[in-house]
């Protein structure tokens, strides 16, 4: 079996290879504007003398090129994408339509407030939904992605402590956390301190209590954590952290497990970010644009970034008047303008479609799917922790590796040949040969059964006579076979020009 349209084996030339001097696709309006000569005003020592060497291609060749590239790309629209921690659910097409409504998409970000009342209402509405889902009091939509949301939240934490005259130094992070957590902590000026997980995959309470002291600014937790397990001691954790004056930060990457089931605010969290491009189905775009709004408790609303949309009064006709306000102790601005606004449109359509009860149904089904798959494949791929999981789970290929030499990465690569995207591999770091699956609620039972069937078959092949070699060669029905990542890092070719130079040097050698 192979992925339709993805088994062409010829390389696609680059757009630069297709360039022929003198060709052009561009066309411009007739404006009647008289020509002005830049050399009349721009100093001669700053004026460009050689044109920028952009490719010269016909529109037809260009369209063919990028269309062929899309045939070399897996996507949610093509098949199941059980990449753990990434929540690759189906992205509704109505959001595509909504995000191209001209009255939203063609608005300049610096238009006066009087001319953007619709946008301000849209943003405050989205904030309200987000606040209710997370159990918080106020929110900002400015952060462009989860990592920027984390840093925003940590700067709010810092501003809060400084405001009450507390000198704090450390932010505690579990060893199973996403890598963005420690990186964000460093950028916030705090020091990350790791708390270990216990044998049950949960934060070790005793170890945590030993770390908590007057230097603790707060703790960052993902709950359910990256092992897909709910931190059942969360109320004890939040009590202990609050007792030393620390704050709790909720990494919302895994919010898809708990909507309408439990709220971070009710667990004792003070600051929450969410990835609209995960839980709220805005597409990932191959790695962005995302959106990472942050919500906080009433104690922290004055520190939120600004300017932020708000209700500022009533119009003469009785309708609500919106404007931008900057909170009194705001940490400042996070985005050039107001955030990834068109992503807000998509996320709001998704929320409106499901409504409060529908969002709970989303989380229920995501958790049901994950548990079904976990149990179904557990014979070949035992779970790292034998507990009910939330919306994702981590299993291990370590026993397979011991008996056959086939590693987690090999399983992932082989799975690509079956038309499924691979799970997340080798994360979290606390599990040997980790395979992290997150099926999401939009995959049907039939899809889960074929996925499980493929995984079983891979385990069978691994145990067969030539199994190890066969799987180690995978994937073969893909546009390229395994790529030499070491070579890419060793002799770096980050541009077409570098590629040409490399080839020239090799010819000369």
């Amino acid at each position: 079996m192979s992925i339709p349209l993805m088994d062409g084996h010829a390389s696609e030339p680059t757009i630069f290879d297709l360039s022929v001097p003198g060709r052009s696709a561009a066309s411009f309006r007739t404006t009647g504007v008289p020509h002005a000569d830049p050399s009349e005003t721009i100093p001669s020592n700053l004026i460009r003398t050689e044109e920028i060497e952009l490719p010269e291609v016909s529109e037809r060749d260009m369209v063919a090129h990028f269309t062929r590239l899309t045939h070399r790309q897996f996507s949610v629209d093509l098949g199941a994408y059980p990449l753990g921690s990434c929540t690759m659910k189906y992205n509704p097409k109505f959001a595509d339509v909504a995000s191209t409504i001209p009255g939203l998409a063609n608005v300049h970000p610096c238009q006066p407030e009087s001319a953007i009342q619709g946008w301000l209402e849209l943003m405050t509405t989205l904030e309200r939904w987000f606040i209710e889902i997370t159990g918080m009091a106020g929110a900002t939509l400015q952060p462009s992605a989860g990592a920027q949301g984390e840093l925003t939240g940590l700067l709010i934490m810092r501003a809060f402590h400084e405001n009450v005259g507390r000198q704090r130094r450390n932010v505690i992070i579990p060893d199973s956390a996403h890598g963005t957590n420690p990186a964000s902590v460093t950028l916030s000026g705090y020091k990350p301190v790791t708390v270990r997980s216990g044998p049950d995959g949960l934060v070790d309470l005793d170890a945590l209590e030993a770390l908590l002291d007057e230097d603790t600014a707060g703790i960052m937790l993902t709950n359910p954590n990256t092992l897909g397990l709910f931190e059942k001691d969360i109320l004890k954790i939040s009590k202990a952290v609050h007792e030393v004056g620390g704050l709790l930060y909720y990494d919302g990457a895994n919010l898809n497990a708990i909507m309408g089931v439990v709220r971070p605010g009710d667990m004792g969290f003070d600051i929450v970010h969410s990835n609209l491009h995960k839980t709220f189905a805005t597409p990932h775009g191959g790695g962005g644009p995302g959106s990472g709004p942050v919500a906080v408790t009433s104690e922290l609303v004055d520190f939120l970034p600004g300017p932020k949309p708000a209700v500022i009064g009533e119009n003469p006709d009785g309708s609500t008047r919106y404007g931008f306000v900057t909170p009194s102790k705001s940490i400042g601005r996070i985005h050039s303008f107001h955030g990834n606004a068109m992503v807000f449109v998509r996320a709001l359509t998704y929320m409106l479609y499901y409504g409060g009860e529908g969002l709970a149904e989303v989380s229920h089904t995501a958790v049901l799917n994950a548990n079904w798959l976990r149990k179904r494949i557990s014979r070949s791929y035992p779970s790292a922790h034998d507990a009910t999981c939330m919306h994702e789970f981590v299993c291990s290929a370590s026993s397979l590796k011991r008996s056959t030499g086939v590693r987690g990465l090999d399983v992932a690569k082989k799975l690509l040949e079956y038309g499924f995207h691979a799970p997340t591999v080798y994360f979290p770091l606390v599990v040997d040969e980790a395979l992290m699956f997150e099926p999401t609620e939009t995959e049907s039972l039939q899809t889960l059964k074929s996925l499980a069937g493929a995984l079983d078959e891979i385990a069978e092949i691994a145990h067969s006579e030539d199994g190890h070699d066969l799987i180690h060669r995978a994937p073969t029905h893909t546009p390229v076979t395994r790529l030499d990542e070491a070579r890419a890092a060793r002799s770096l070719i980050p541009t077409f020009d570098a590629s040409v130079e490399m080839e020239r040097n090799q010819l000369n050698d």
Partner: protein
Amino acid sequence: MSGFIPHTPTEVQEMLDFLGIHQVEDLFISIPESIRLARGALELPSGISEPDLLCRMRELADKNRPNPEDLICFAGGGAYDHDIASSTRSLASRSEFVTAYTPYQPEVAQGVLQALFEYQSLVTRISGLPISNASLYDGASALVEALNLCVSQNKNPLVWMSQGINPSFRAVARTFAAGTGHEIVEVPLNNANTIWPFNSQKIPGVVVVGYPNYLGVVEELFEMLEYSQKNDVRIVFVYDPVAVSLLKSPGSLGADVAVAEGQPFGVGLNFGGPYLGLFSVKSDYVRLLPGRLVGETADSEGRKGYVTTLRAREQDIRREKASSNVCTNQTLIAITAAIQLSWLGKAGMKELAQRCYSGTEYLKRLLVGRPGPFSLVSNRPTIREFAIRTPIPAELVVERMLEEGFLAGIPLNRDFDGSDVHGSLLVSVTEKRSAVEIENYVNAMERVVK
């Protein structure tokens, strides 16, 4: 449940039976009961259908008045009203690009990876610096990452930031400096040109200059460039990627890092986002590069292919010692820019900048070329926008011009306190503006200030 949850009640029952439980709620027993919500506890409305929600979004759009379709745009300031090729719109909305994740499995992500490789190649040719990452969130975040890179490289946290940098970018830099501890000194303008304190006792680690600056002005740069090179100061250019079609590249002038807002390349106004942070550096800094980097390599059969590379810099591997916390960035927008740049091509790119320049010069001539109510803030050269003083407050001009069918420009207030620029109006002309639109704009401007 209808919609995007495909499970029938029979299937749900089959799954529950397989798991040996009675109801889905049984899967949530690890959540303390005291905080578990009852069904329907969220105080949110019920779901609505696709047609209903689209109506609702159109209603919201209709509240943006005047309708942006009826508003002729003379505002810029980092967000420009350019034409977008139909082919760019079509290709960039293909679902293989739109619904993919970050390319963690390169064998099935060659489409995104190669498009990003081409994007990086295009950005290096525009900036004149040999290394570009695979995108950052926006112009402001690209500037923040530039400061972080420079300071981590030379360990001098003193930053001289020209007040000619976009005020929002400066504000974002200040926000993040609260965490990094960078000491940002904003250097004032005189006649729209930065007055660098060359005689200052303390030598900065980094200087940041606009090219052209936020007021559209091509500043005098050479003294600053010489000073920086002599004193081992890192130079960050915040450039306009359209204007550099007419100007020497930042790289050729000695920039260490060049950052830009990439919105002009095929990205709509979008109420300010998603946009695109262009980020390129000298090759010495490649190991400090924030964000993703795509490199060419070969597969096991010797065929050319692409992977994300130098991954050891990144947060998921290096964790607290990573050069940046960036994970998800703006891939789809970077691909959009690559497509639009390919469509523009070598000749079209120059033509685009030339048309912006011609339109801007035409507007300038009509607005201030003869005695009248408006005057230039600076007589220095500009490419595609300029600031004017207005006889009534700039905000009032903008409000009144809305009724005339124009977005007149951006009033300069925020972050210009105490500067001679304060209170002026920033206006911009793109290749979309016709001579008639420009003439009508000038007539309307003269009417509304009477």
